[in-house]
């Protein structure tokens, strides 16, 4: 409709009527639908959760809230089990980040060579990232089955079998099993992103370094690492934030058990809300996770800015 109108209007008039960017309300018209949508389904719920974290509220009667101030926070921080949850979350996040970025970098370096079939190799390597978390949890559970799982058969064959084979029922081995599964699902993304970052490494520079007799390690840290460092930092940040909120893989594999040995913040929050029906406590736990994420983001910005200043100097 607007097109018809405009073609009919004399050009000079059209130019006089509108500034080149349209009126100053134009950008708001473009973003209003999305902004309203995000406000309704993200901002309002978040505000409600913040409110809930200061109340006693039961899942069975969510509209009746008793304001209790900071009691929920005081309660969780004085709880030893919550301290364990924080420790497990820390271990989970750190291993996920180091594992996925490390494995991704290794794979990216392997694939950063031209060889026949590289395209296929690169495509196949990204498959785990595309696989749905539900399917991954399902096949992981089956592979770890105490009697018939391929993992136990393999471990027994090489003499590393876990007694009884019940890896996911063991408070020692369940977390490592989940960490391996998570890393398996994450490394394709980090490797693909790092692979494209490696394209920016000047080839003649690495070759020159090698020609001058520099070792591989020296070349890597003096040339390659300098180029991909910002990408590594960004990936580490993304992996941290995503790992802090990862739910379904852990929930479907162990539900946080056995005896809380795989209970991260998000698992604890869900169990509090839907098993213990304590919406207030659950919200407070969730807020702790959100604040940790915010600190990580702010910290990374600070580090990035400091690094930038260093470079300018």
């Amino acid at each position, binding site marked *: 409709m*607007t097109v018809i109108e*405009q073609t009919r209007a004399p*050009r000079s008039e059209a130019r006089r009527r509108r500034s*080149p*960017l349209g009126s100053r309300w134009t*950008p708001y018209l*473009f*973003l209003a*639908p*999305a*902004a309203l949508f995000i406000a*309704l*389904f*993200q901002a*309002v719920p978040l505000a409600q959760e913040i409110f*809930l974290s200061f109340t006693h509220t039961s*899942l069975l009667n969510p509209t009746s809230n008793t304001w209790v101030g900071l009691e929920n926070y005081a309660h969780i921080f004085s709880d030893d089990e919550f301290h364990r949850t924080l420790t497990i979350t820390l271990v989970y996040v750190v291993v996920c980040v180091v594992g996925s970025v490390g494995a991704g970098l290794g794979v990216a370096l*392997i*694939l950063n060579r*031209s*060889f*026949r079939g590289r395209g296929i*190799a690169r495509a196949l*390597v*990204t*498959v785990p*990232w*595309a*696989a*749905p*978390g*539900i*399917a*991954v*949890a*399902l*096949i*992981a*559970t*089956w592979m770890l089955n105490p009697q*018939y799982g*391929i993992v136990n058969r393999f471990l027994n064959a090489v003499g590393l079998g876990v007694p009884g084979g019940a890896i996911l029922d063991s408070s020692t081995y369940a977390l490592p099993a989940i960490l391996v599964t998570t890393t398996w699902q994450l490394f394709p993304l980090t490797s*693909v*992103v790092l692979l494209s970052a490696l394209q920016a490494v000047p080839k003649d520079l690495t070759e020159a370094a*090698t*020609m001058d007799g520099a070792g591989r390690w020296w*070349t890597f840290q003096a040339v390659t690492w300098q180029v991909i460092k910002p990408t590594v930092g*960004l*990936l580490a940040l993304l992996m941290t*934030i995503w790992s*802090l*909120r990862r*739910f379904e893989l852990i929930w*479907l594999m162990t539900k946080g058990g056995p005896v809380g040995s795989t209970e991260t913040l*998000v698992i604890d929050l869900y169990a509090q809300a839907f098993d213990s029906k304590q*919406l207030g406590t*659950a919200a407070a736990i*969730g807020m702790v996770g*959100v604040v940790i994420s*915010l600190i990580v983001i702010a910290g990374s910005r600070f580090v990035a800015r400091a690094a930038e200043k260093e470079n300018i100097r």
Partner: protein
Amino acid sequence: MSGEMPSERSGRHSEERAQPPAEQARNRARPEHTSGEMPSERSGRHSEERAQPPAEQARNRARPEPTSRLRIGLTLRIVAVLAVMGIAIFPLYWMFVTALSSDADLFASDARLLPDFSQFGVFVDALAEGETVRWLRNSLVIATGTTALSIVLGIPLGYALSRFSFRGKALMTVVLLLTQMLPEALMVVPLFSLFNRFELLDSLVGLILANAAFVLPIAALILKGAIDGIPRELEEAGRVDGARPFTMLTRINVPLIAPSIAAAAVIAFFHAWNEYVFAVTFIYSPEMQPASVGIASFIGEVGTPVQTVMAVAFMFTLPAVGFYLFAQKYVVAGMTAGAVKG
């Protein structure tokens, strides 16, 4: 690893130069089996070298590399590539093998490592049961709706963030990034009460809205990055003609960012296809269940044969992986742009 190439190459050059023609021919043929390096690239480097005598000198200085060492290096690299591919593929391959196993093979003391295609009926049986088809259909509806909604809302948002400067722009960008750290498990309670009020529980529409809220920020950031890459000059002509910004967006920008729209669409589609927390909480009638919830209900359940479970899970996984591989180039480009710029 990264430092090895040049010395290896110089080793190969010197070898070729020193050896009789027959030997040379064999050497030229060999790398296709071992390294598989592109021949054209090699010849390109040859000519490059001829043009730069100093470089060649430098290379010769570092030359005398024993052939056996580079063969070990090559073998190691091939083994590494194969190992990584194997690790990446094996669990899904194992899902397929398990689906196609007879009971005897499944519970035998020695695992059968190859699929038994005579058991293919398990896929047919799983599809013949109405449940599986209904799950997949519900997932398809949810994923399609989520994709459409997040693209339709994401394009104008990305355009506004890319082309205009306005009050609140920085805030909007920060909000989009902050949504990335909100766990679904946290938002499930308030969204539950919101949907309860608007009678959106136990409905696919509710799930579409919830999923779109989570994937829209990612889509918008990817699309903003794509529009950033389009020269503003292309819009100037439109401006002279007096076209409104909306026309310029739909006529000039949208066709040019089609690959990024595809990337955002694939990401949105599979976010919704895979989503579990909202679906398991908001849906209670079996007819509305998507495949993620249906398949998750198999975990820890013993009534259904393992082969059927794996067959259904494989049919749920295959579209995600297949479609992803098909659109991989765009998705990776989009994700990378979004990740690097976001």
